[in-house]
């Protein structure tokens, strides 16, 4: 009688276990590069042949190993990193599972060459399908070189699941790329069949690494993010919304220096981009989370591609807020340059600096007033209170002519830093150049956030109308008004049903003095009843109403603005969360930096 059950020899167990860690050349590359990183290498070179199926070689200039350690490293579960089980919770190095080398060695023709940094004899160990073949002296510089040939050569069952050489090369390249993004000071080089795919010098910043990887242009369209929420810090780069949607969308997340995937967190980033990009656009980002090691479990996936956070809502909130703040900066505005023109580096003047530059030239000359956004009220001239009401002019019918005599007018002329172009755009001179602001888009952004705040806080005001407006609506519109009456009331519209599909508007919001409550209400109800790309992109009823009202209620292109009106609009725009973007996903601001101007005028 034959025994049915056999104890598997270690070698076979290794081959099977290898499947968990080693599924394809890219996972070998990843494990080996992680080992190299753990050995404090400054430079790591990866070369592939046949997509890594023929040969993978990873060479580093790290600390290397003594011979005894090298042999131990090839023992399954031998790892220099973990001594006791509880250490598992504190690991922040990469290859803690310790099975990488034996697992790889079990399924390939394996050669390890190493020499300790401290000096001493180098070692060369050859392993063939899990069996140590030879251990020799080797003369080499400090560091380790691992060569993996004929991966899965003895395991046709596994080998047949591998993709084409070019497919595997791509995967290897992506693995190196991720590690290169996570380890900026380390120089990386990746070759395939003698061709250089990546050659990255040690990078001083993420932006520098991105520039080396994808070019200066790509680097220039990214915005810095750095924000701590509680114990969670989120740093990195995110794509300027105006640049999003062109070409490949590169989206990378790292936690404590380790790349990971998370559809949920990707969605959270998209969520933070809401209203700054059109609906289907997926902006690029490279975001680095730093959390307490015990807050994250990186061990849920053998390839460590996914992680589990103890407090995921906190992480999501931190991520969202970091991206939101990043998008709120002035650098987030679209640069004013022709499509495809060369790029100047993205300077990063803080938003308050730019905004106060707009304000600080008031006639009072009190530059740098603590809260400049409201200082327009500080001036004694009564006409200054009439923001959004034609300044000192008595009727405003003729702003230009009346302005000649208006008491406030001379002051306006002494502040030439805001200028209205064709009654549509506001040009604002700021410290580092020029902003072109679309007045309608800007006001949309201002109103949208104000209306959303009203919904949240339930506060606001509603101007009673001297002559109530009576409107007869279509049946579906009337139904919509009835359904939305409560929310409309919160926005300031006080509506009384009058029977027979007629409503009376007794009061309305007053986003600006030229606001036409009746026209706006009609247009808004039409849009809310029959839909539009704008309101269809909204997430809930509040947002639908806010978007629609912001769009219909905002000052229009073609509306002449006084200096004070422009100043107030610009101040209010910069007080919003996302000043650079309107509610349609279009930019509100184009930025022309002095740097760019100098470049264009050939001064650099």
């Amino acid at each position, binding site marked *: 009688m034959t025994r049915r059950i056999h104890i598997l020899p270690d070698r076979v167990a290794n081959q099977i276990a290898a499947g968990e860690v080693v599924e394809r050349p890219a996972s070998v590359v990843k494990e080996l590069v992680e080992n190299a990183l753990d050995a404090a290498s400054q430079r790591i070179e990866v070369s592939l042949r046949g997509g890594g199926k023929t040969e993978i070689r990873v060479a580093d200039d790290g600390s290397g190993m003594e011979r005894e350690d090298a042999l131990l490293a090839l023992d399954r579960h031998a790892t220099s990193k973990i001594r006791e089980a509880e250490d598992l919770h504190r690991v922040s190095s990469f290859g803690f599972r310790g099975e990488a080398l034996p697992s790889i060695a079990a399924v390939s023709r394996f050669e390890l060459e190493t020499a300790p940094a401290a000096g001493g004899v180098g070692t060369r160990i050859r392993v063939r399908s899990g069996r140590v073949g030879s251990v020799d002296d080797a003369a080499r510089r400090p560091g380790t070189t691992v060569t993996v040939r004929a991966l899965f050569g003895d395991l046709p069952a596994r080998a047949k699941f591998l993709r084409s050489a070019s497919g595997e090369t791509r995967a290897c390249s992506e693995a190196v790329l991720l590690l290169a993004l996570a380890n900026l000071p380390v120089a990386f080089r990746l070759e395939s069949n003698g061709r250089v795919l990546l050659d990255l010098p040690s990078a001083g910043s993420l932006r520098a690494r991105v520039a080396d990887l994808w070019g200066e242009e790509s680097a220039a369209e990214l915005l810095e993010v750095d924000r701590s929420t509680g114990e969670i810090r989120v740093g990195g780069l995110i794509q300027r919304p105006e640049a999003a949607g062109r070409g490949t969308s590169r989206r990378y997340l790292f936690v404590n220096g380790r790349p990971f995937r998370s559809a949920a967190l990707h969605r959270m980033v998209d969520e933070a981009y809401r209203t700054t990009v059109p609906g289907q656009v997926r902006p690029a980002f490279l975001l680095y989370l730093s959390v307490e090691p015990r807050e994250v479990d990186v061990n849920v996936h053998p390839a460590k591609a996914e992680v589990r956070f103890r407090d995921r809502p906190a992480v999501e909130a931190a991520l969202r807020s970091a991206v939101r703040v990043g998008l709120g900066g002035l650098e987030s505005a679209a640069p004013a340059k022709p499509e495809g023109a060369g790029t100047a580096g993205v300077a990063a003047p803080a938003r308050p600096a730019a905004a106060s530059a707009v304000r600080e030239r008031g006639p009072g000359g009190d530059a740098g007033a603590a*809260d400049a*956004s*409201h200082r327009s*009220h*500080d001036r004694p001239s*009564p006409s200054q*209170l*009439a*923001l959004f*009401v*034609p300044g000192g002019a*008595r*009727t*405003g*019918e*003729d702003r*230009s*002519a*009346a302005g*000649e*005599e208006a008491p406030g007018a001379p002051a306006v002329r002494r502040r030439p830093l805001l200028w209205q172009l064709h009654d549509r755009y506001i040009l604002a001179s700021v410290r580092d150049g020029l902003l072109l602001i679309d007045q309608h888009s800007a006001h949309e952004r201002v109103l949208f956030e*104000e209306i959303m*705040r*009203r919904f949240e*806080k*339930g*506060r*606001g*005001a*509603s*101007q*009673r*109308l*001297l*002559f109530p407006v009576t409107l007869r609506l279509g049946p579906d519109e009337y139904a919509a008004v009835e359904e939305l009456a409560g929310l409309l*009331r*919160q926005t*300031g519209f*006080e509506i009384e049903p009058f029977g027979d599909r007629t409503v009376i508007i007794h*009061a309305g919001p*007053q*986003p600006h*003095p*030229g*606001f*036409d409550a*009746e*026209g706006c209400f009609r247009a808004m109800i039409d849009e809310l009843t029959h839909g539009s790309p704008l309101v269809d992109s909204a997430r809930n009823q509040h947002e639908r109403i806010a978007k629609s009202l912001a769009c219909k209620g905002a000052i229009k292109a073609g509306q002449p603005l006084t200096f004070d009106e422009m100043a*107030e609009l610009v*101040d*209010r725009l910069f*007080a919003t969360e996302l000043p650079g973007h309107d509610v349609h996903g279009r930019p509100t601001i184009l930025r022309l930096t002095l740097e760019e101007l100098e470049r264009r005028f050939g001064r650099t």
Partner: protein
Amino acid sequence: MRLSITREKLQEGLGAVAATIPNKTTLPVLSNILLRAQGARLEMSGTDLDISVSVGVDAEVEQAGAITVPARKISDIARELESAPVHLVADGDQIELSCGKSRFKLFGLPEGEFPSFPEVDFSESWKVTAGTLQELIGHTAFAASTEESRPILNGVLWQLRSDHCTMVATNGHRLARMTFPLEEVDAPEADLIVPPKALQQVERLFEADEEVEVARSENHLAFRSATRVVYTRLIEGPYPNYEQVIPSDNDKQAVGSTGALEKAIRRMAVVASDQTHRVRLSFSEGTLGFRVQTPDLGEAEDEVSVDYQGETLEIGFNANYLLEVLRYMPDEDVRIEFRAPERAATFRPAGGEPDYLCLVMPLRLLD
């Protein structure tokens, strides 16, 4: 055309007309001033097609005639000239101007290209002193709407009756109304809706003690004194029934110092929201309290003593509207009448003179 004129007279006339010249125009002749010499006067006219102004000044006319010249250039020249007699000679489309040793030659456009003035028959006219017009205009025109969706409210309603006239303007949130008695009336009653811009010209161009004749045609209105004429297009359409919305049942009233109230509100406005400019007024026995709260900014409070006996009542208003009303209030004390937080409040001179009323609709407070 050939004439002599003092530099001062020339400048006076040009200055009076210049404000009507449009800054941008597609019709080049509108950038010009029409000069017409006849009798012992040089008449200067400008128009933007809606409003036309004509001013006559004394001159020694040797040869009558007319020409149009670029308004900006001739005004600038007149300003820079020495104070000496100026000689003007027009020949074809050119005009030569000399003064002392200065000589200028400007290219103009023929008189015929200048738009003709509306024909208004002054045989039926109202007579008002310019001072009265200035009072009426100065206290009401500010309240006209600037929003374009209701053109009617962009105008000032001028109601001419047998023994008085009233001007009213509103933007639908606040309203100003003033009435003056009239003595001599040769024309029938009329309701005219006049663009505020034209009224500003009227307010500016006539001397307070001058008598102004006012007459209308189908679509135009003209104001005429011995030396000046202002023509304007009228805004067509029925003006909303404003009398109906002026409350007659406001049963509470407070009287306070116009200046003190204005100052307090101005202080409050510093902290009022940029968007709504909302300030809360709370009336209580003997005092009027003010309060503003602006999210993310802060809050402020103030108090002014007023003559008020009644229950405590709180009403919200747009601070800008209140400030305007108080600024134009022609009395040291103002009487505020109101009824409820959602009802219109009215403001009048406490002394009852002149017959002036401002109305402000409240800002409803959502909390």
